[in-house]
């Protein structure tokens, strides 16, 4: 069982990770590792960080959508999973970058996750959607326009909080269209730091009280992040 509301009726902070697993992620970096290897290390760091934080462990819920991959499409790779049941796994890069379809799927998942949590009599904070991509989306222009309109509208209507993160080489212009917030740029391949930051931020957000102004953890380890 990946989600357990009976033994853990704590409030939840759902988070959809929309990850780029297109073939371009297999390009090697200066460190000699491929980008996807860095990303996979990041996922493992996320698991460790979540499991070392007692609040995050009981409150954070994760699902993963990949863009690209063996089927070269946007697909649900990991359904909603409580942080204590989350086990990191490795992604394999292949295919194109249909990011627009990935965003739409992410929005649907966030909405669905929220309804499921509420129908189980558990309260929640606003769902998060973290989008990480390293290239230009290969979605059609119309699909991209539709998807970015939907994400910005969802943000305006408090449906979801979106954090677009551009890996080196990504089109900043396109990534900036996803959210009202400017996209953060990942310097180097600091996926590990990124995912630890995500865990810390979600933990902070998960325990936020009404009227709280959340100050997300400092992004000093990777200064380029302008969150």
């Amino acid at each position: 069982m990946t989600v357990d509301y009976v033994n853990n009726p704590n409030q939840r902070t759902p988070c959809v990770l929309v990850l780029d697993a297109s073939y371009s992620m297999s390009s090697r970096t200066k460190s000699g590792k491929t980008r996807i290897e860095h990303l996979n290390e990041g996922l493992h760091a996320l698991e460790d960080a979540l499991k070392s934080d007692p609040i995050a462990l009981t409150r954070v819920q994760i699902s993963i959508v990949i863009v690209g991959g063996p089927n070269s499409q946007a697909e649900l790779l990991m359904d909603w999973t409580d942080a204590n049941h989350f086990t990191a796994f490795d992604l394999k890069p292949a295919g194109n970058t249909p990011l627009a379809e990935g965003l739409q799927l992410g929005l649907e998942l966030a909405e669905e996750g929220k309804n499921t949590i509420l129908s189980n009599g558990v309260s929640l904070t606003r769902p998060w959607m973290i989008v990480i991509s390293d290239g230009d989306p290969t979605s059609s222009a119309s699909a991209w326009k539709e998807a970015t309109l939907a994400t910005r509208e969802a943000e305006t209507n408090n449906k979801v909080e979106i954090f677009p993160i551009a890996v080196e080489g990504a089109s900043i212009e396109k990534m900036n269209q996803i959210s009202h917030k400017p996209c953060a740029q990942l310097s180097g391949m600091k996926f590990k730091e990124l995912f630890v930051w995500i865990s810390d931020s979600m933990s902070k957000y998960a325990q936020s009280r009404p009227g709280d102004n959340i100050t997300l953890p400092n992004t000093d380890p990777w200064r380029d992040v302008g969150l």
Partner: protein
Amino acid sequence: MLSTKWDYSISSVVGSSHVDRGQGKQDNSNLLEDDNGNISFCISDGAGSSKNSEVSSKIVTNFINQEFLKIPDLINSKGKGPWINDFIIQVVIDLRAKLFDTFKNYDLRDYHCTLVAGLVFEKTAIVVHVGDGFILAGKNEEVANKNIFNKSLYFSKPENGEYKNETYFITEPIWLKHLRIQVLPDIDWLIAGSDGGEDILSFGEKLQDNEVLKFLDDAAKQKSLKEKNDYIFQVLNSDVANSRTKDDKSLCLLFSENIDKQKKLNWAPEEKLIKDFYPVPKPIQNPIPRTSIVRPQVNTYQRPLAPTQEYNDPNEFISEYGVFSILLMIIKRMYFGSLEKVSFYIEWVIHQIIKFKIYSAIIALLVFLFLFLLIKFLFSNDQINLNDSVNFNDPVNLSDPVKEIDVKDKNMILTPEVITNSDVIEESVNNGASVNELITDAIENDITNDTKNEDTSLDKDVTNGEKVTTGNDNET
């Protein structure tokens, strides 16, 4: 003097997260008792994002308590009636006016705070609530040697927004929409708290019957007012409390003195319980169809990865898999490697095209190429006349007119002299040889003759002792 006297205790404690952030206590709680034993209590939770909520929540608790204690006298003179609602609304309006006046500002977003308040007189409570926090009250029934504490329960629930970390404040312009006033008749005990206080008695954001009963039971054992206050302070500061919330926490407890505290406190399961106030979770009736979410058939992420064995000795690896399998592995890896590389470059090119928007340039280039090929095809002037009028397989008739033919880019005049120069040719003609054969022979003869002539001329030059010059004379 009232017939019912009340024991009371109230306390607020700063949350550990506020200590970490260097913030003060934003929860404020206050309780006033008048000479007649009427009690007014108020808890106000200042919002973390509002920088002056610490101050505003203090003003709120003091003001509300003083104003609410005017109600019993008014009831005595006017009698009970709907005017009490209007009076309470007027108190809040006056409170907001005081805040505007104090902070010299009509925008109170820096002073946001919630309101959990009430007036207790005789056995009745009038409770007023805006935002989160809670008020829980009940009637006691003495049966034989025990107190049934949940004979009737009243609960003013916290009101959150769409999400748990959103609520409503008395300092917001829309406060009236979220103001809840309840009259709780005939009660013997009452607990009120901020959201932090609620967390202490909750599991999964829901107040728990057993936790509340334990809290009441332990509090009832404390005899003096000081002991009761100490007990609440101790509960708020306990490790359990700190593990459940990092927020400020406040609790207020009122006991009717009519309760015989020597008797054991009980919670009758057949009576209404706290959990009955919460909606029963039920699946969504009409879920929105989500066609695009395809659930993966196999949860690969759940499947533990097969342990990979490491081979230190190549021979061990070979004996494990066999040479043929290893060869296949290598071929497979090479094949897929190159295929992936090709697909990567194709993708890269497509990316570049999309990135630089050079669709039009590529189309123009293709059109130009097409036109170029078309023109070249239409105006090409290849002249091959060899087959035009001579049938090379026919026997040669020497009296035919002279033909000019193009053989290997050499224009050669076929004259009867050239052809008949050789006896062999003549013989061949007589034997019925074709033009092809004749031409080949003639050319070969010519070439051998030319070479012979050149060789002899070269010999001549050398033997005459003259300088052999090639190219430009000026060089020598």
